[in-house]
């Protein structure tokens, strides 16, 4: 509690000071980042309270900020599209659809249209919001998601053209994995004797996935982990400050 109060005071104090003194507008966020970053790193190794609680509290604070910023996002969406409609910019008709959809969903959700009690969740059975979610939102989402099937086919067609040695290896590996996951793969090489079972297509497919593929993925993961550590360290120490808009001012 003491740490949280201290942090809150630091936050409020820095916002207040930065508001009046322009050079402090970047210094205080950097100080706050340093303090919070170090605190959360330390919290990973200290199981005694209040450190584990701090992690929970911080993510809760983030959620609170995100809720408030949603108003900012919604406001921006409305502003951009209303301006487009007003100025009759290119394709302004689509903006009418966006604004109408936004307002209808917002009103129905806020006033819980069709709900018997105010205390019911907004997605309760029988509400207009639930109906819209099931009848409009879910099918639209599924439609966009199902486009993936066609895009996978077209991307695979381009990627698997055996123009180079690497592309040929990729093509062969993909072919083995695809065949190995189907009954045809099992049937094709089922006659192989026991000593040659490694070359049975489903076994070969599993081997490709669990050995070369896994080795590559792990190498990428190690690189990513190091990149995350380095980026986090640069932010905590204030070396990386483009998230503050750079260090030009």
């Amino acid at each position, binding site marked *: 509690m003491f740490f949280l109060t201290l942090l809150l005071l630091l936050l409020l104090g820095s916002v207040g000071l930065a508001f009046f003194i322009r050079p402090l507008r970047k210094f205080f966020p950097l100080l706050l980042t340093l303090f919070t970053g170090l605190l959360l790193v330390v919290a*990973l*190794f*200290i*199981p*005694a*309270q209040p450190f*584990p609680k701090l992690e929970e509290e911080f*993510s809760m604070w*983030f959620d609170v900020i*995100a809720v408030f*910023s*949603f*108003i*900012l*996002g*919604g406001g*921006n*969406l409305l502003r*951009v599209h209303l301006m487009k409609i007003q100025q009759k910019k*290119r*394709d302004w008709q*689509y903006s009418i659809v966006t604004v109408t959809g936004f307002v209808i969903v917002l009103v129905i959700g806020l006033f819980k249209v069709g709900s018997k009690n105010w205390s019911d969740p907004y997605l309760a059975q029988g509400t207009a919001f639930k109906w819209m979610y099931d009848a409009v939102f879910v099918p*639209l*989402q599924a439609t*966009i*998601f199902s*486009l*993936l099937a066609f*895009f*996978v086919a*077209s*991307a*695979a067609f*381009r*990627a698997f053209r055996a123009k180079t040695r690497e592309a040929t290896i990729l093509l062969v590996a993909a072919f083995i994995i695809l065949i190995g996951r189907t009954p045809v793969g099992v049937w094709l090489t089922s006659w192989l004797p026991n000593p040659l079972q490694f070359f049975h297509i489903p076994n070969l497919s599993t081997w490709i996935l669990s050995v070369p593929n896994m080795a590559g*993925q792990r190498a*990428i*993961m*190690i*690189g*990513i982990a*190091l*990149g*995350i*550590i*380095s*980026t*986090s*360290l*640069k*932010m905590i120490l204030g*070396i*990386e400050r*483009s*998230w*503050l*808009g*750079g260090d*030009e*001012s």
Partner: protein
Amino acid sequence: MRFKSTYWFSLSLLLFFIHPLFANQVLSPNPTVTNPFVEVAPENVVAKDLPNNSGKVLQVSWNFPDTLPIMPRTIKIYRYEHDTISKHIADVTPNVKSFLDTSVMNGIPYRYSVQAEYPTGIVGGLISEPAIAKAEWFDRSKINLFVIALILVSFILGYIFYSEKGQRLFIRKIAGIQAIEEAVGRATEMGKPVLFVPGTQDMDNVQTIAGLTILSSVAKMTAKYETKLDVPVSRSITMSTGRETVHEAYLAAGRPDLYSDDIVHYITDEQFGFVAAIDGIMVRDRPAACIYMGAFFAESLILAETGNGIGAIQIAGTAMPTQLPFFVAACDYTLIGEELFAASAYLSGDKRSIASLKGQDMGKAFAIVLIAVTALFSTLSVITGNEFFTNISTFLLNLTISK
């Protein structure tokens, strides 16, 4: 009458002297032993504090034979606070041999009794030694992580201090990063916009931050070449940060007049709603360059294939291993994993950021050496069966596995 008083006095005196013999039974709630040859009681009741936690939890364990003549219906666990008050805290199934009591306070001694309830009655009632829950100030199970983190941080900080002395550091060229300027140049020549998508995650994701640092460099280029930049985002906080980033980049490029808040605009938090909107923007505005930098999920291929369909030059960067193949298949250049984090250092040319890349490389070298040595000793251990090799390989494996 006299006999009666003497009788009662003697009985009271006897009870007074022998009552300590029954003390444990008094503590134990209903310790009925019905048939000791059939009903087996839990033995060796031990209560202990668990290490490496914030306290407020005690583990009670007991022994119970695996094969029993009669299975008890349930195992009853009682807790004693200050040795006087007993409280029934839980019933567990007979096959369970331990219980975690999470309702204890730190610093207070607790004793436990475990009893088996049979259809014929309850047996057991042995009381454990007292145990006290306490919070630890260092999680010893994470000491390996702590040491490795310390080594990596030392490498990075070491190189940063080294670069501060004016030493020039070499970093290899990354084709994807070099292609960014080429892509912006192409968009300028064609008079078409540059589309930049900083992923679909919020600012608490380090990939989004890496994406925005690249956006800063891209925005400087678009400001310099007077090219239109379009940055649709799926999170409100990302929108605010993105605006600040682009605004400062336009200021730095000396073209604040070209900046507009509409460059970075919010669409929706919904994954596929966001994708549908960006696909619409791509098809209508036909940007000459599409840059995707950040965390992506299933939307990666939908975006990249649409971009490919409109003939845009596409550069992607993500640290999501599952999405990398899609970007590699559909984009012209892809920043794989760590390259996404290296891009901002590379583009900014800041010597301290470049130094941190060298530190990262040293960390990679350390990981390679550790993996090679572990593989070597594990192989030697399997081939020779030598205890020395086995111990070393076990130690190295434990070192890299976080508990």
